[in-house]
């Protein structure tokens, strides 16, 4: 194994971290150089992620453990392992790919958008920091590090939301989001403390071996805290109120990173449910909590989207409803896995839910990026005051339409493939749930048709912005996401077999392999 | 040992009092000072719980720096909590 591949997990965090702190320095030398530097960092990060993923899948998708630190020999003769671990299994690598995609699109998009505004240096720095946090959450094998990376994402994300200090609404949104994120982070920390107090360890794999069957009361409380805190950061419904504020007020490129951030929290939730507790403690009620939250999320998200007048809030509620689909699918998978006789449709549900994550990142990202251009052109975010964008912005119109159709599950785009898997597997558990999911999907199409009709169609309205062509880097960024949408739509089997199935396998039956990968090297 | 026990109980009681005052006082400056006092007492409690390094950090960061930031924020906003 060569050195680059061996150190790839830590490089994935280190490169953007160094970049984030070097950006202000490079920014002193000129904005052109800074944009080039940030783009370079993003490309390098994506390249490392791609290389790591390629060799991971080529090596049969067995978990990779990367250890920072070594052993400490005490004068008393006791030897204690002092180490921080990154552990990557199929799910982590899959999430890493989503994040890399979102990061590349966001950085490409932003490289021209903010050319003339002040504070661009700070924003580039924060975006890279957010990317660091998300990668860290997805790769760490240690609960406390998970909390640290969670807080890094919270701070970076909220700074991005409140980035427009000249706008009162964005400050309001940032304050609310930050309070809720901090609260959820503290609950997660409380859970970490409880687990440490119970078992004296922080490593996920170690804790997973210690949590015996019929978990103790402390385990249940810790699970409740972790589940609620992470579900809130993912935007599950009774606790979704921050999501439209944050997505709506953040700059266009940051919105897509916020979606990736929510998905990383969702990843944390799945990791806790399937790996940390998994077969040790998995009552059916847990699956039904997840399904209940998911159904609420789907219904409320889509119906609230229907009545929004603010374009970005509309898309944001759409994004909330999509989180519901992922939770529904994984909840169904969990229910099927923990039933007395596990049934195969649970695996299809997991595949569908995870496949939907990458599809959602691409489609919602496309919509947010297109909406950013539309809002800039129309000079307002109110759908009531928009119209006729399609006359001038051909590519943006096409990308928005593609994203909307794909998200609503129109064949032959990618959203249809993943939603079909979700519907069919959910139907096996409970037909009612499948019907709700399908109806919500139809409603989602109506939502986006309304947005499309109001913003793009109709007679030309007077643009407040000077008639400038859309910068080429934005088109490239949206083109990248559109390519993903079309490619995943036309060749779903190819991608499901290669990247989604290992991830679903990691949830379905990968718990022992995950634990084994760490515990075999723990004593040495 | 007895003395330490009593000290610990007094400290913990005072922490609660400080927190309650910080929440209930109408004058925001007073409530920030109550919060700082509670923080200092928590750092004493950390010392009693055999965590001197955490105690130093809590006294320096939790009590002093945080209070300074609160006071800066108060100067730029307003001091009284409105009805």
């Amino acid at each position, binding site marked *: 194994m060569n050195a680059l591949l061996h150190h790839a997990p830590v490089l994935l965090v280190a490169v953007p971290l160094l970049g984030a702190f070097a950006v202000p320095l490079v920014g002193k030398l000129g904005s052109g150089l800074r944009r080039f530097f940030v783009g370079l960092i993003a490309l390098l990060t994506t390249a490392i992620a791609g290389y790591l993923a390629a060799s991971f899948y080529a090596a049969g998708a067995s978990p990779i453990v990367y250890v920072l630190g070594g052993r400490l020999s*005490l*004068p*008393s003769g006791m030897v204690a392992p002092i180490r921080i671990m990154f552990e990557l299994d199929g799910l982590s690598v899959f999430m890493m790919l989503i994040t890399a995609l979102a990061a590349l699109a966001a950085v490409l998009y932003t490289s021209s958008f903010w050319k003339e505004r002040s504070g661009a240096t700070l924003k580039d720095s924060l975006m890279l920091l957010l990317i660091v946090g998300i990668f860290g959450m997805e790769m760490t094998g240690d609960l406390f590090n998970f909390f*640290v990376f969670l*807080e890094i994402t919270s*701070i970076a994300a*909220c*700074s991005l939301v*409140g980035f427009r200090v000249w*706008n*009162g*609404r964005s*400050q*309001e949104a940032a*304050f*609310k989001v*930050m*309070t809720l994120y901090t*609260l959820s*982070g*503290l609950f997660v*920390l409380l859970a*970490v*403390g*409880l687990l*440490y*107090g119970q078992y*004296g360890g*922080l490593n996920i794999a170690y804790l997973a071996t210690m949590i015996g069957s019929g978990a103790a009361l402390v385990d249940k409380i810790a699970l409740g805290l972790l589940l609620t805190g992470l579900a809130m950061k993912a935007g599950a419904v009774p606790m979704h109120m921050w999501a439209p504020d944050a997505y709506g007020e953040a700059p266009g490129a940051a919105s897509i990173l916020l979606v990736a951030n929510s998905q990383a929290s969702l990843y944390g939730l799945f990791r806790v449910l399937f790996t940390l507790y998994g077969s040790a403690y998995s009552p059916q009620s847990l699956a039904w909590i997840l399904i209940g939250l998911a159904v609420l999320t789907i219904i409320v998200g889509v119906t609230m989207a229907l009545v929004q007048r603010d374009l970005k809030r509309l898309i944001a509620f759409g994004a909330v409803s999509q989180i519901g689909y992922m939770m529904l699918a994984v909840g169904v998978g969990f229910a099927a896995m923990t039933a007395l006789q596990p049934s195969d449709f649970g695996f299809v549900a997991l595949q569908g839910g995870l496949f939907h994550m990458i599809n959602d990142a691409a489609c919602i990202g496309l919509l947010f990026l297109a909406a950013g251009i539309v809002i800039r052109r129309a000079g307002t975010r109110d759908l009531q005051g928009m119209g006729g964008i399609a006359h001038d912005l051909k590519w943006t119109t096409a990308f928005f339409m593609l994203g909307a159709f794909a998200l609503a599950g129109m064949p032959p785009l990618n959203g249809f493939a993943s939603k079909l898997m979700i519907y069919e597997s959910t139907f096996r558990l409970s037909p009612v749930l499948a019907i709700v999911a399908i109806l919500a999907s139809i409603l989602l199409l109506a939502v986006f048709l309304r947005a499309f009709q109001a913003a793009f169609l109709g007679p030309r309205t007077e643009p407040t912005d000077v008639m400038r062509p859309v910068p080429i880097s934005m088109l490239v960024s949206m083109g990248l996401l559109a390519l993903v949408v079309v490619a995943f739509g036309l060749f779903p089997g190819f991608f499901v077999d290669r990247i989604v199935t290992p991830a679903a396998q990691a949830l379905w039956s990968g718990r022992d392999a995950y634990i084994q990968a760490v515990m075999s090297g723990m004593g040495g | 040992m007895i003395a330490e026990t009593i000290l*610990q*109980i007094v400290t*913990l009681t005072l*922490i*609660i009092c400080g*927190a*309650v005052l*910080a*929440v209930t006082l109408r004058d*925001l400056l007073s*409530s*920030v000072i109550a919060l700082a006092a*509670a923080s200092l007492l*928590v750092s004493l*409690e950390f010392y009693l*719980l*055999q*965590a001197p390094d*955490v105690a130093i*950090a809590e006294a320096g*960061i*939790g009590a002093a720096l*945080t209070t300074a*930031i*609160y006071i800066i*924020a108060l100067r*730029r*906003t*307003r001091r009284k*909590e*409105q009805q």
Partner: protein
Amino acid sequence: MTLGQVPFVVSALLVVIGLYALLFKRNLIKMVIGVSIIETGVNLFLVTVGYRAGGQAPIYTYSDPTTLRVLPTPQALTLTSIVIGLATTALLLSFVVFIHRHYQTLDAEKIKELKG
């Protein structure tokens, strides 16, 4: 209830007091104070988790290796958590200052442009 459990009760009380401030106080700075109190409660909880009755501070120089130690890991966690707490508090307060600049008020009831 032994003395060792009293700090747990106090940290739980701190969390409750902080939540009370978040739920029933309308002033933004009071809400930030509430977040700070919850943070303090969680930190106290972490340190208490690492405490062993009769243990000594985990500082090894010049000490007898056979004495009972309190656990060092929760203390390291608490240090990290204190620093993170400072960052979040500073960020929250800066948002409060900017909100005051735009809305001319700190009353949470009046700061709800984002709704529905």
